[in-house]
């Protein structure tokens, strides 16, 4: 599917799109997440200005971009941890910024998020970490919780590690445990914040495979924020590239790689200099070395 060019056409404002592959309609798919004219500022600096973005149900959508461009902020806006300065974030038909606390928490039960640092509770072992949302949100018996937790851990390949403490896990294992915990309540949407950063090639391969497998096996929607270009593009159905507080490129992995924008190409190929300069803005070297006063 990712190999085919697609074109999304909005039908009115009900959030339903028709996906057309090579000119023929193959299905109707509604968007789980929509961002409309989104603006977000922090300390007077615009992180996003007039960003429009849609995340279709059941697909893996990658959000990529250089460090500090607000990729994590984007996830926090979707999760309702942050409120936009202007514009709207709609998740499952609900406007997140307008939700009251109780409704927001209800909505979050339908989401899972894997944080960059895993966010495992250090005082609980692996089993209890995964069991945590089940104990908090359900009244299932201990036997049922045990079965569910072991099944989730089996899915990420860590059933044998259920008695270990987070301090005994490697970085890759921590993220797999966090993934098991994130899917404990069978969410509709799962968001990954830099799941591959700092991982060795084997862990990276395992995580990439898991993200795709979990998405397809559970039929959920995935948003993956990353700057590991090749690995992320290998599993993404659709990709957004963010820089300078706006979307500078979007499309399927193939079309994004063929994108002619210098900025997109600099990011994808990891070129040290280009639209994003190697040097931090400053006076000329001569002025600094000779101690000249100037602008």
């Amino acid at each position, binding site marked *: 599917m990712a190999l085919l060019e697609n074109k999304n056409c909005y039908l009115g404002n009900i959030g339903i799109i028709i996906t057309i592959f090579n000119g023929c309609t193959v299905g109707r798919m509604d968007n789980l997440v929509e961002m409309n004219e989104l603006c977000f500022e922090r300390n007077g600096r615009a992180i996003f200005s007039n960003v429009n973005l849609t995340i279709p149900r059941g697909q893996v959508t990658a959000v990529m971009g250089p460090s500090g461009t607000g990729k994590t902020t984007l996830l926090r806006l979707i999760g309702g941890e942050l409120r936009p300065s202007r514009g709207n974030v709609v998740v499952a038909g609900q406007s997140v910024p307008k939700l009251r606390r109780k409704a927001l928490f209800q909505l979050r*039960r339908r989401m899972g998020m894997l944080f960059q640092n895993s966010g495992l509770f250090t005082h609980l072992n692996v089993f209890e970490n995964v069991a945590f949302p089940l104990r908090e949100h359900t009244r299932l018996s201990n036997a049922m919780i045990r079965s569910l937790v072991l099944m989730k851990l089996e899915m990420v390949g860590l059933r044998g590690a259920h008695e270990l403490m987070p301090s005994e896990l490697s970085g890759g294992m921590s993220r797999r445990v966090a993934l098991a915990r994130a899917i404990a309540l069978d969410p509709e949407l799962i968001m990954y914040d830099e799941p591959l950063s700092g991982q060795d090639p084997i862990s990276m391969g395992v995580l990439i495979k898991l993200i795709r497998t979990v998405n397809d096996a559970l039929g959920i929607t995935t948003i993956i924020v990353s700057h590991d270009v090749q690995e992320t593009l290998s599993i993404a159905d659709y990709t957004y590239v963010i820089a300078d507080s706006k979307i500078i490129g979007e499309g399927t992995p193939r079309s994004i790689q063929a994108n002619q924008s210098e900025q997109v190409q600099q990011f994808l190929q990891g070129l040290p200099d280009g639209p994003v300069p190697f040097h931090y803005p400053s006076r000329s070297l001569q002025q600094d070395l000779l101690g000249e006063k100037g602008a």
Partner: protein
Amino acid sequence: MISYIQALGRSGIDILQQYGRAGVLLYRVMFHIPNLRKGFPLVLQQIYAEGVLSLLIIIVSSLFIGMVVALQGYHTLAKFGASQELGPLVALSVARELGPVVTALLFAGRAGSALTAEIGLMKATEQLSSMAMMAIDPIRRVISPRLWGGFISMPLLTIIFNTVAIYGAYLVGVKWLGLDAGAFWSNMQASVEFHADIVNGILKSIVFGLVVTWIAVYQGYDAEPTSAGIANATTRSVVYSSLAILGLDFVLTTMMIGGW
């Protein structure tokens, strides 16, 4: 000049915002009392972590403080031929002032700093965020049990402090310096009033318990999520708590002496 006034105004607004955030935090804790099934075990855990684990420092400190007050008091009272009044002197000093104040200061150093560091670290390692994203309110799950745990522990620790300090004074006054045990206890019983001395001391400790734990959890919750930020928050927690204890002690003592 204008920039100076601007900076002054900005820092004033920052301080007011901090008070506002701390007030909202306290409001949310006080009006979201942990429920019996899930919250009570968490509060018990915190009473253990904050109260029971502080027992050693409280018992050792109170024993020595009682002994020192007895030793100092005996030599001063002996000059006036009033050494038999050692029991009342120690009991009143401890029950009215030393018990609540020193317990609160020790609690702020031992449990308050640990609370701030723990919550700050949970914030820095995204444990609080992941909890919130799991639709679990970190204030209800993390902050509230800790605040209630401290609030309940402090008066109990103060009672233990008072008891051990008086026992320390008994060891020095009666067992070492040879005062009559009957005079020591009967004079103490005759001088100490239950309401004016004991209850007022416990009331102070309840106020200190609330304030110290509130400062500790707020500093942790509001900490900048970096190692330097957590270190600063922990320092602030102990400094602000100590100042608040001493300032509030003066205010409460004034109110109590004035009969409210």
